[in-house]
């Protein structure tokens, strides 16, 4: 049994077309999964469905064997945390310490235990010296790290990053990615991203287009389907563009060049 099982999921906002249009998904414990897809392909909607912020019109979501519904949503939210894109809009507390405490307060954790957890996880994301700072005095990357600490403190099994680095400067991206990478062995991670280099490192890549999963599998399997990627309006890696060129020309030793390029792609 997979940790996350999504079956035949449909969702539509009141106004628009189907935002999620029959999605099936299996994610195993400990996997690092990247979801790719162009703007409006339904990635965020899927993420919000997984954490119970939106209610599916049809289909089912099972997390750790528990079916997501109105009664189980509080239970499920202990197992799954989400970091959103905008660092400012998800910072609830007046100080860093307040913000990390927020989720713990909601779960009625005792004060002394909270202090310990805040200490532990703020150190882990290297924000322990900023506990009394206000969000106005933090960079975007710092705010995102605080958000991660707040979620880690609740100790969920799964963490979703919905373009958590999209609004950051390169330095911030680096800092946050470092934290995310350090979590890879410990948590099941779903990262929604536009960054193909990140996707290459994933255990599983899922490509979405118009609310559907169009590709799913190991990175090398997924990136072979250049046509589908292009149809999904996705960027492809430079090395893959080269690959395509080689594929369409008549140079000799074609197979060797191709193998070499594939190796190049996955070397990093």
């Amino acid at each position: 049994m997979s940790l996350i099982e999504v079956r035949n999921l449909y969702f539509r906002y009141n106004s628009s077309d189907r935002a999620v249009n029959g999605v099936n998904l299996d994610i195993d414990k400990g996997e690092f999964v990247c979801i790719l897809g162009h703007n409006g392909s339904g990635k965020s909607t899927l993420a919000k469905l997984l954490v119970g912020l939106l209610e599916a019109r049809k289909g089912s979501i099972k997390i750790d064997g528990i079916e997501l519904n109105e009664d189980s949503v509080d239970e499920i939210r202990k197992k799954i945390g989400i970091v959103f894109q905008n660092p400012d809009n998800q910072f609830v507390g007046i100080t860093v310490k307040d913000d990390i405490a927020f989720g713990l307060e909601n779960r009625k954790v005792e004060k002394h235990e909270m202090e310990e957890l805040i200490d532990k996880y703020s150190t882990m994301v290297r924000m322990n010296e900023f506990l009394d700072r206000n969000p106005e005095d933090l960079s975007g990357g710092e705010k995102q790290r605080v958000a991660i600490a707040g979620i880690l403190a609740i100790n969920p099994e799964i963490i979703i990053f919905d373009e958590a680095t999209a609004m950051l400067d390169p330095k911030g991206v680096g800092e946050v990615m470092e934290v995310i990478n350090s979590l890879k062995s410990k948590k099941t991670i779903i990262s929604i991203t536009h960054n193909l280099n990140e996707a290459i490192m994933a255990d599983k890549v899922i490509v979405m287009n118009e609310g559907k999963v169009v590709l799913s599998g190991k990175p090398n399997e997924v990136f072979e389907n250049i046509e589908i990627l292009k149809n999904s309006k996705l960027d492809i890696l430079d090395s893959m563009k080269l690959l395509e060129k080689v594929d369409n020309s008549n140079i000799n030793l074609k197979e060797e060049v191709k193998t070499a390029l594939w190796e190049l792609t996955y070397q990093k």
Partner: protein
Amino acid sequence: MNDRIVFGQYINKDSWIHRLDPRCKIITLFLMMIGIFLIKNIYALLICLGFILLVVLTTKIPLHKFLRSFKMIAMLLIFTAFFQIVFNTYGEIVKVNGYDLTYTFTLTYLNLGIGILLIVLYFLLGKIFRKFRLIQFLIFVALIFLSEAFILIGPSIVSYTISIHENGLYTALMVLLRVLNLITLSALLTFTTKPTDLNGGIEGIFKPFKFMRKGVSIFAMMMSIALRFIPTLLNETSKILKAQASRGVDFNDGSFKDKVMQIVSLLVPMFVISYKKAEDLANAMEARGYIPGDERTRIYELKYHISDILVYIFLVLFLAAIIVLKIGGIV
């Protein structure tokens, strides 16, 4: 931008008032305010003010910060005092050295000219000296009155008499003292208490009342979100102002219609931004397990110390004194 919000800003210092339990501070402030409202005796109000100022000195917060919070309502106070002194005609006319405080002012054509000249001067001066505008304004008003009292050349347009009555002077002084007392007290609270603590304090005070706990907890959360987002929204506002200014919108000049358009050009993006923020925030809070009105533990647990108890004892004595003096007809 942030300079302007002086009132209600926490000032980080280490003093015994800073360390008091916020519940104690809020309750003491609130009851002292009510007590001060009951006092009608100017000397008693002066004593209160003196005492509060002594306490202010122990907070290690520079006095000019307090002065700045007076500045915000100085205009209002001056007008109230002015109207009381000029128009209140109850009681005897005040005598100084046996002379009635009665003045006659005459508006002559010359005075009218001087007046207009002074007003023009006032606005011109404003372009050069931006500081002390209130004092400048008062000096010009005084000059206009002086000219009407002493320069009596040429035909007069209108002549009027102002006499200062005991009651007016008394009420003006009392209002002034009362407001000074109240402002210093509330500044004392907000300067020495972090917004988070204020919030936790309000929540803590209502905690014993089980039936209203839900409402209070939601209210406290709303307050804390407001506190959290006010600086952010101010930031956004100044960004929009700059963006509009760079497109040639001049927020200082223009006709009434232009002004309305400028305000709309500010409000619409602000509304859109706030709505987006609110939606994101609600999602983030819900995803992190917040259920409105549900019981939560708090990271800032409030504890009373000896100093809090001493303050409460003082508060009881203060209120008792006012009640006793009130019954005795003294204050």
